[in-house]
């Protein structure tokens, strides 16, 4: 599932050119690594623009020490789970480089849509001479679910979000020196920054050497925050749109326990995402929570691996069951979502092999049935098990005793927002455009 991570860091004031920013970008990207593991880019701007795009995990793609030699005091970072994904570089009329999460509805695929967006931005800046107004105009006119960071030849950094606020974007500050924009607050935390606020929906924030300005589109529709961010995409320590992801996941677990209770000896979450769901379920049901699995090797986000093979590999290395936690027990097994069901079946089988008795599978989100129009790469419908099978049938296939999803109402309740303020397209299909 492609939900890139984007990051921009901008120094101000006396000695701003003294900052070596490359490793700030590196560590910020590390904290967004869960958003993309196939391509990573570090862009720095000082006397010159440096765009370093590499394949693979940030830690593999970049040598943390060698980064010290990349000059530049303004930095932008980008991560994607598509290995051919890279920042968009436009050379005229206005030279700029742009990274984006989600997708403006300007083309068939992310890459071409973002290229079109960046070209429009360059043209519009050239036409109006005001990059802030130009960017706001684009946000006003271009539909989609997206956020972006662009760096222009004039050392201006523009960061903006679509009108509905579908994709997240958060602002941070460090001391008297640095400002930053990132997909998630986890990046700000890891950089030791204070989280300040979210970029508003339909808002563009501009950093230039002497000021920060922000401007919003005139007519704001209701927000439609991506609910999948809270279910799976975001890191649990992140706070998006003022809503802490961890608390939402705890509540999802609690609501799940109320909606579909089960009798069991222990509640186990599939690492890492579903552990807070399990804690929530445990709290609401009074059933013990256990750590059920240990991860081997690198932490790899399995749902965003490109091939089935790699995905399975990730899951298997990720999920070695702790025998003494499951042997002889009735288990409530919680996962964040179900795509093909392959990994879930594998997991259920593994638990039974280690002595688990009954396994009640609970999913912390509604059935995933539709593709995402904004580039979150959900497999085609005929590969979505929830699209073709009922809960009872899925239980049978994965070998579970019972199987239930969270309701859409439960999801909305956990988020503390009405369904009308959420993007629910992957569960319910295209409602708004």
């Amino acid at each position: 599932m492609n939900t890139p991570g984007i990051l921009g860091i901008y120094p101000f004031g006396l000695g701003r050119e003294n900052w070596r920013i490359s490793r700030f970008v590196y560590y910020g990207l590390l904290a967004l690594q869960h958003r993309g593991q196939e391509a990573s880019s570090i862009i720095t701007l000082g006397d010159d623009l440096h765009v370093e795009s590499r394949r693979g995990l940030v830690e593999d793609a970049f040598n943390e020490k060698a980064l010290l030699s990349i000059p530049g005091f303004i930095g932008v970072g980008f991560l994607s789970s598509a290995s051919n994904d890279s920042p968009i570089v436009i050379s005229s009329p206005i030279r700029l480089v742009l990274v984006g999460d989600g997708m403006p509805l300007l083309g068939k695929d992310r890459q071409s849509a973002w290229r079109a967006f960046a070209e429009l931005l360059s043209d519009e800046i050239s036409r109006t001479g005001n990059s802030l107004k130009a960017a706001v105009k684009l946000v006003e006119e271009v539909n989609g679910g997206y956020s972006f960071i662009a760096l222009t030849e004039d050392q201006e950094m523009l960061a903006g979000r679509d009108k509905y606020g579908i994709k997240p974007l958060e602002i941070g500050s460090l001391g008297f020196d640095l400002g930053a924009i990132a997909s998630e607050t986890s990046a700000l935390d890891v950089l030791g920054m204070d989280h300040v606020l979210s970029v508003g929906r339909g808002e563009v924030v501009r950093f230039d050497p002497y000021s920060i300005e922000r401007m919003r589109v005139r007519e704001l529709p209701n927000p439609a925050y991506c609910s999948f961010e809270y279910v799976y995409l975001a890191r649990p320590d992140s706070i998006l749109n003022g809503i802490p992801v961890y608390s939402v996941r705890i509540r999802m677990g609690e609501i799940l326990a109320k909606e579909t209770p089960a009798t069991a000896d222990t509640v186990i979450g599939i690492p890492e995402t579903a552990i807070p769901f399990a804690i929530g379920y445990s709290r609401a049901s009074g059933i013990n929570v256990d750590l059920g699995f240990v991860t081997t090797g690198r932490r790899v986000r399995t749902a965003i691996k490109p091939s089935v093979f790699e995905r399975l590999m990730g899951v298997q290395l990720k999920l070695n069951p702790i025998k003494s936690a499951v042997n002889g027990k009735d288990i409530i097994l919680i996962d964040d979502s179900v795509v093909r069901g392959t990994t879930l079946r594998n997991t259920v089988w593994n638990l039974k092999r280690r002595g688990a008795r009954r396994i009640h599978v609970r999913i912390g989100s509604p059935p995933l049935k539709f593709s995402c129009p904004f580039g979150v790469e959900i497999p085609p419908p005929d590969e979505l098990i929830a699209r073709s099978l009922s809960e009872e049938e899925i239980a049978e296939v994965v070998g579970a005793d019972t199987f239930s999803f969270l309701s859409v109402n439960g999801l909305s309740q956990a988020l503390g927002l009405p369904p009308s303020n959420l993007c629910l397209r992957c569960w319910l299909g295209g409602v708004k455009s």
Partner: protein
Amino acid sequence: MKIMGVGGGAREHALAEAIARSAHSPEIYWVSELRNPGIYKIVKATGGEYALADTKDAGRIADLAVKWHVDMVVVGPEEPNFHGIPDEVERRGIPCIGAKRSLSIIEMSKAEMRRLQWKYNIPGKLLFKTYQSYSEALRDLERYSETLTWLQNVALKPARQAGGKGVKVVEDSQIYLHAEKQEFKERHMRWLEEYMEKYSDIEEKILVEEKVWGPEYTLQCFVDGRTVVGMPLVQDNKHAHEFDIGPETGGMGSYTGRDFLLPFITEEEYKRSIEIVEAMVKAIQDVTGEHYHGFIAGQMMLTEIEGPTLIEMYSRLGDPEGVNVLALLKTDIVDIFEAIIDERLAKMKIEFSDEATVVKSLAPKGYPDFRSLAKGHPVYVNETLIKEKGCKLYWGSAHLGLDGSITTGGSRLIEILAIDESPAKASQRIEECISLNPVKLLDGWGLFYRSDIGSAEMISRRVELAERVRRLYKYREERGTLGKRIDWLPKIGRVDPVASLLKELSFRR
């Protein structure tokens, strides 16, 4: 009374001993390929004769029976069955304890056995596929994730019973080791195809069966064509080495518990197991129109899918399992043989003494997979010592030369039996015996055996395993999903591999 036995292993040694115990005081005649020192001694003691011959040569064996004027023939191993020794002997008018050729197909062709089971819908089935060539099999196995789930974890077997050789279990569930496993599977299937070339009696070469896990046990029975009488359960240990490590062997040792059961098998499971064997006997008789006279055994496993599950069938006693049960048999075996011949087993009371037994095999290094290394070594045995330690010795793959010297035959050389109140105690007794080195190869070549068989540690591990499996199959039972397998494949949807298999089988018919 004259009884002739066929076959030269430890099982046959035990058979000969049991026959010798009979109140009928039979003269015992024997034919095998190597001169088994133990059987030879018994034969000689009863005034019988011992001949060396190809036990697959039905004419030659029947000739000997006729020549010796024996009253009945008892077949020990499977190959004589496959080659119609019982058929030929009976054709010559001599009753035979041994499955006829057409009946022994349930052992000879693992594929036929399984097809029969599916056709008659007998419980304890496994999914399977057969292939005539390795390349054909490969097509199915190399598509990792687009193929049916069960094909990821399989047992690769020769489609025909091939001396207990060539079975590999490949659980390809660590996808990161898939390359190695795949390569290994390929190489093994290529080997299987080649290896099977030497058996002209079967078309299918390779059997791919779904891999299951759970504790194994053997249920051996007497059959008279009408009635199946079960004996005490035995657990055989197929792995060559300590800790259940290493290649599959004919069996490195076995033990029995008390009350016909094993510490990890319940009475209900025993009952289900014997129902399976009975049903299989009925089915094969139904298909062939023949009456089954002799021994039959189900090599069983408790699986999560169905509980008692048939892994393979023997058209004979197991080896070493036969040694365990014959040692406990209290009823006169010759009476039993006569009852089988007369098809009146139902009326007979067959008794076993309620004690635990353990058998451990000693094999020359090289067994099972490098037999040429294991063959031809001179053997020294201190039988007195073994007896003193309260154990009994059964000769296996050994040849008694005319000069009185004994050499190894390449397979399991000797089996040592102990009887006690628990397997652990019996095992411990054998350990004490073996620690005194009663058996040696005089040229210094090594022997190996498994110290763990029957030990308290082993049994508690089996019990734990059985509990895990029982939990799962009981649970299926409760939900009515015993034997059910449901798959869902992206782009394809819901798949029922059982239905697919049945369709394929009916299409084949």
